[in-house]
């Protein structure tokens, strides 16, 4: 066996050959090439004559009938059950994993002597909607919703407080056996209402109706800025 120049360590790679494309005759290539060109022409002709294939939306005009995929990521929301209790435990994992630092979770110690969520603040102006926060959440507490009509003229209006409810988590509340006990705990928590700016009326009404959003005119900018709110919390 002769010495090979082409070795990696002890392995002789001189016999390894890359797979080459099989070259057929000119006539074969000509015919198949022409056929594939015709195939392309057929496809484009199909799309040209079938207007139902058009994917463009005439957005402001078809606002009433617009359908956006459920997977579209435009708005971060806290998940809650039918009683209005949150899954969120205030563990801060989403905030730690956010690449832009767009999430602030402010936790407190509640009546159950456990960590509870006080405020969940989302800075939409620096959010890239990457969905990492949703993926890393161990309690399935947040989700991305397709409501995209969130434009505003002031940058401060992009600071959202996602929770209205502040108190024991659903997990802790479910551990209590006596429903009266649970009600007592819920009532005990003194919830401070959010005083920051309210973008597009989204936080006052619980559910933002996608099909009939509030007109832009109705934005209420309160005198206290979001910055003040954040400062107060810190």
């Amino acid at each position, binding site marked *: 066996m002769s010495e090979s120049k082409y070795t990696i360590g002890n392995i002789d790679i001189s016999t390894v050959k890359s797979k080459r494309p099989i070259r057929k005759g000119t006539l074969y290539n000509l015919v198949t090439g022409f056929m594939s*060109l015709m195939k*392309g*022409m057929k*496809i*484009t*002709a199909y*799309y*040209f004559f079938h*207007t139902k*294939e*058009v*994917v*463009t939306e*005439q957005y402001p005009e078809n606002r009433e009938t617009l359908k956006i995929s459920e997977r579209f990521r435009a708005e971060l929301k806290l998940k809650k059950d039918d009683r209005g209790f949150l899954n969120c435990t205030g563990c801060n994992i989403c905030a730690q994993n956010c690449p832009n630092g767009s999430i602030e979770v402010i936790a407190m110690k509640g009546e159950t002597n456990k960590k509870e969520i006080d405020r969940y603040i989302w800075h939409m102006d620096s959010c890239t909607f990457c969905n990492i926060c949703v993926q890393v959440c161990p309690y399935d507490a947040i989700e991305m919703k397709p409501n995209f009509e969130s434009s505003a003229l002031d940058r401060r209006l992009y600071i959202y407080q996602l929770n209205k409810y502040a108190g024991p988590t659903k997990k802790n509340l479910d551990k209590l056996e006596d429903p009266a006990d649970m009600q007592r705990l819920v009532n005990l928590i003194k919830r401070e209402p959010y005083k920051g700016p309210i973008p597009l009326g989204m936080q006052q009404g619980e559910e933002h109706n996608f099909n009939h959003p509030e007109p832009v005119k109705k934005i209420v900018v309160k005198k206290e800025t979001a910055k003040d709110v954040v400062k107060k919390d810190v």
Partner: protein
Amino acid sequence: MNANWSLSNLTERINMSSVFVEQLMWVAVGLIGVVTFISLLALVLVYAERKICAHIQCRLGPMRVGWHGILQTLADGIKLFLKEDIIPDEADRLLYFLAPFFCLVATLLSLLVIPLSPQVQIIDVNIGVIYLGAVSGFGILGVIMAGWGSNNKWSALGAMRAGAQMVSYEISTTLSLLVIVLFVGSLQLSEIVLSQQEGWWIWRAHGVGVLAFILLLISSVAELNRTPFDLAEGESELTAGFHTEYSGVRFSFFFLAEFINMFILAAMMSTFFLGGWMPFHIGQLTAFNAAMDLIPPAIWFIGKTSVMIFVFMWIRWTFPRLRVDQLMKLEWQVLMPLGFVNLFLAAIVVLTNFYFFA
């Protein structure tokens, strides 16, 4: 004194023959007509191009300005004319200024000989085919001047590519046109149309016509610098090729020339192979031919030309771009030999009177 200033003795006063004045008037009317025609044509073609490409790509295209965006090109034209005309510092100013006019004039000159209908043909020269070949070379000159005058690497590269490409593909264009010249025995465009009274050359010529038609289709797409042969202005490689440095009105001239060229080549293909303004006739079937004659010739011409323009656009928005060496290989190793063989076969067909309705 007053009588001397009447219009009737104008020719006497300026010492011109009335025939000359009449010709001058005719040229003026022709020029105004042509300028109006090409402006309207460019508006329609640009709109058609944008709409067709949009629907091929599952889009809608312009929808806002006017009904379905029908005034979009007009608005774009106004914008182009109002834009600043930038001249690079290092540009060769004479060539830079002249290039767009060369391109536009070449297209205008080609438009003169195309028979739009039996009545509408501005000049019917007896060497129409040679004239068309000669005048389209004028446009290449404009492109090379633009590329050289801009003093920009992309422009220069684009112009060189455009020059090489257009000169090469001129050969197969001419070879396929010569097939029809062999059949007709005349270089006059009106006679070429009249010779198709019994059937269009594309199917009368026993396959030779079809092959010549395909050759002309490929080479005219190449001459138009459209995809798959848009190496001269390939956006991903050369930004815009020979007109990288142009802006405003001068850019719009190139744009105009490109679209009018498309119309001219489509009109040429319909004139040579699809009968021009001649309705669809089959031999001596007088009843059928009379029925076809009910549609006016101008409609026939516009219909055929529109179909060819649609084919050009369809090809453009379907095929990927070729490499430079592939482009040259296609012409010199495939199309040109094929063209010569086709011409030889056509000569045999003509000599043996083998074609339909001889």
